[in-house]
């Protein structure tokens, strides 16, 4: 009992230790996995940001270059010829909002598509000539920071001066709508994902914001400084303005709870501009990833366990079935044995009974054989005595003779019995008249009856039927019956 309890304690302790080891290893592995996944995730986010930034840069640069080439190659052509190229450029490159030509007086003389061109608009008259002036004076392409379009939304204005030698002929203005860029490069990044993408220029002004459309055009840094919160994000924004790239974490202060956000940022460089793309996703994304990894592992593990358990259960079932079959067999064999034993016991009982009957029979036979012998022996010994009277001598001799007959009959009976037992008794079946049988028997037993002064009266019905049987044996049966009757009839006169 005590040993059993000790064993249980030992098993319990071993179990606890094993569980502890497994838990420790699990935590350690979890930490490593988390770190690895985090790292991978960050790199992936950064790659996404870099790709988007590169795309934007090249896209914008390409468009500037096209207009510059036009301005340089067609500088000696007529204005009409120059503007005639606007349509194929617009249609062949996609991405321009409109392309316009401003003459030396600062008046918009042509634009494509024409419905978007404010023909007759005078940059001097509207007091918006500074960029026009600097492009003309510096003889260089001017791209001011993005400003609002008449039709709404932000746009980038590309001012390219056209000089024929030293002669200023005007400015080609290409307008690229910011939404064209962001729709192409930034919006697809966040499809079917949580988090958002934003794009700022080097002043911290929002060019695109995936979640807060209202913030587009406003300056994040100014906004953050005003509310004086989100210092960690402000730091990131400053990094972005400086044109660096990387990943960082900041705490987003939401309406209900704060959540950690991972920001991957990469600079967009085109001409003198430095913009920055930021991809901000909740840190819980990483947890989601890890969880999905674990979920897959769990599915694998549970499948394996289910297979193992199923297999074991099948084996157990199979063995228990075997066991049951064996048990049933043993039981049936036991039943058979019990039955056989009972039968043997019964047979033994019968044999004992038979044995008892046999010994009783032997005892009886020996008594029956000895009785006439005793009579003969005593009679003979009486005869041997001296001076025996004549009458007594006769008496003794008749006793001897009678008993010899009796003994002979007895021996014959025994022989018959043994023949019956061994099946060697031969019966001769013939038609036997019963009155003949009885008459013969009476004739034989008559002397014995007379000796005891017993009268034998025979009354037979007339026309007694004949039977089929052994005449001799039947007669013997009747004789025996009458002899017995005579023997056991009391002697009246003793």
């Amino acid at each position, binding site marked *: 009992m005590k040993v059993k309890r000790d064993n249980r304690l030992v098993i319990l302790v071993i179990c606890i230790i094993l569980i502890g080891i497994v838990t420790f290893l699990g935590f350690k592995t979890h930490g490593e996995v988390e770190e690895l996944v985090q790292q991978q995730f960050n790199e992936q986010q950064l790659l996404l940001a870099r790709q988007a930034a590169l795309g934007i840069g090249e896209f914008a640069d390409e468009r500037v270059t096209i207009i510059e080439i036009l301005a340089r190659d067609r500088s000696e052509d007529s204005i009409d010829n120059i503007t005639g190229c606007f349509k194929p450029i617009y249609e062949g490159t996609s991405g321009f909002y409109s392309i316009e030509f401003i003459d030396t007086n600062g008046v918009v003389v042509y634009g494509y598509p024409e419905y978007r061109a404010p023909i007759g608009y005078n940059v001097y008259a509207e007091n918006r000539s500074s960029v026009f002036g600097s492009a003309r004076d510096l003889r260089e392409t001017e791209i001011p920071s993005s400003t609002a379009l008449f039709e709404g939304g932000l746009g980038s204005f590309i001012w390219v001066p056209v000089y024929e030698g030293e002669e200023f002929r005007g400015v080609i203005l290409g307008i690229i709508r910011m939404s064209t860029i962001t729709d192409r490069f930034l919006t697809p990044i966040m499809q079917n994902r949580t988090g958002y993408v934003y794009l700022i220029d080097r002043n911290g002004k929002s060019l695109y914001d995936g979640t807060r459309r209202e913030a587009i055009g406003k300056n994040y840094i100014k906004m953050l400084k005003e509310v004086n919160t989100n210092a960690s994000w402000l730091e990131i924004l400053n990094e972005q303005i400086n044109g660096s790239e990387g990943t960082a974490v900041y705490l987003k202060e939401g309406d209900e709870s704060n959540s950690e956000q991972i920001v991957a940022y990469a600079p967009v460089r085109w001409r003198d501009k430095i913009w920055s793309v930021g991809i901000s996703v909740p840190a819980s994304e990483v947890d989601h990833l890890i969880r999905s990894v674990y979920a897959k592992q769990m599915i694998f593990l549970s499948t394996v366990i289910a297979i193992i358990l199923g297999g074991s259960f099948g084996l157990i079932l199979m063995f228990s079935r075997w066991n049951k079959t064996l048990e049933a067999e043993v039981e049936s064999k036991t039943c058979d044995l019990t039955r056989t034993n009972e039968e043997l016991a019964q047979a033994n009982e019968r044999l004992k009974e038979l044995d008892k009957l046999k010994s009783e029979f032997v*005892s009886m036979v020996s008594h029956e054989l000895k009785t*006439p012998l005793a*009579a*003969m*022996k*005593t009679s003979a*010994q*009486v005869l041997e005595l001296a001076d025996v009277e004549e009458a007594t001598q006769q008496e003794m001799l008749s006793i001897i003779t009678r008993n010899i007959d009796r003994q002979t009959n007895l021996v014959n009976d025994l022989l018959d019995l043994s023949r019956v037992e061994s099946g060697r008794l031969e019966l001769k079946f013939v038609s036997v008249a019963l009155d003949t049988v009885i008459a013969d028997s009476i004739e034989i037993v008559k002397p014995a009856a007379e000796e005891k002064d017993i009268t034998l009266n025979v009354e037979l019905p007339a026309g007694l039927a004949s039977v089929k049987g052994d005449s001799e044996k039947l007669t013997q049966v009747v004789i025996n019956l009458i002899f017995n009757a005579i023997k056991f009839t009391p002697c009246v006169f003793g």
Partner: protein
Amino acid sequence: MNIGTIDDKIVELLQNEATLSYSEIAERLCITETEVAERIRRLSDARTKILIVDDELDTLLPLKRALEMEGYNIIEAQDGLDALEEVRTEIPDLVLLDLMLPRLNGFEVCQRLKQAEATSYIPIIMLTAKGETSDKVEGIEIGADDYVTKPFDLAELKARIKAVLRRTAP
């Protein structure tokens, strides 16, 4: 009228009047003269009286003759109840008792005789064809004085009878 009491009355009459004739006694007791003669003969018999009990007449008869020749007074019975009756009326000096008897077997007869105070002193020799030791033991245990198996030697039986009588003689 009981046989025993008739004997007693004859004895009583003769004690009072020794000169009474057989006919006078027969007259007084309302019995025949022959019976009186027989009774007186029996009463005056001084020989040792042996009762032989056997249902086989052929066994009984030679034994009776032999013992009579030996000078014993022999009376006989052919079944158990008969034997008990004979013992009560005749009061033998010895009983030769067969075991296989009709109505009441030898063991029972022996047992009853040995249990009754009046007859317990009478010696009994068992006489039987059954020779098994267990039978002998049972016979001796219930009070038989000797046990002889059939067929017996006449001389041996005579010797045994003498021995038993000598042993039990008063």
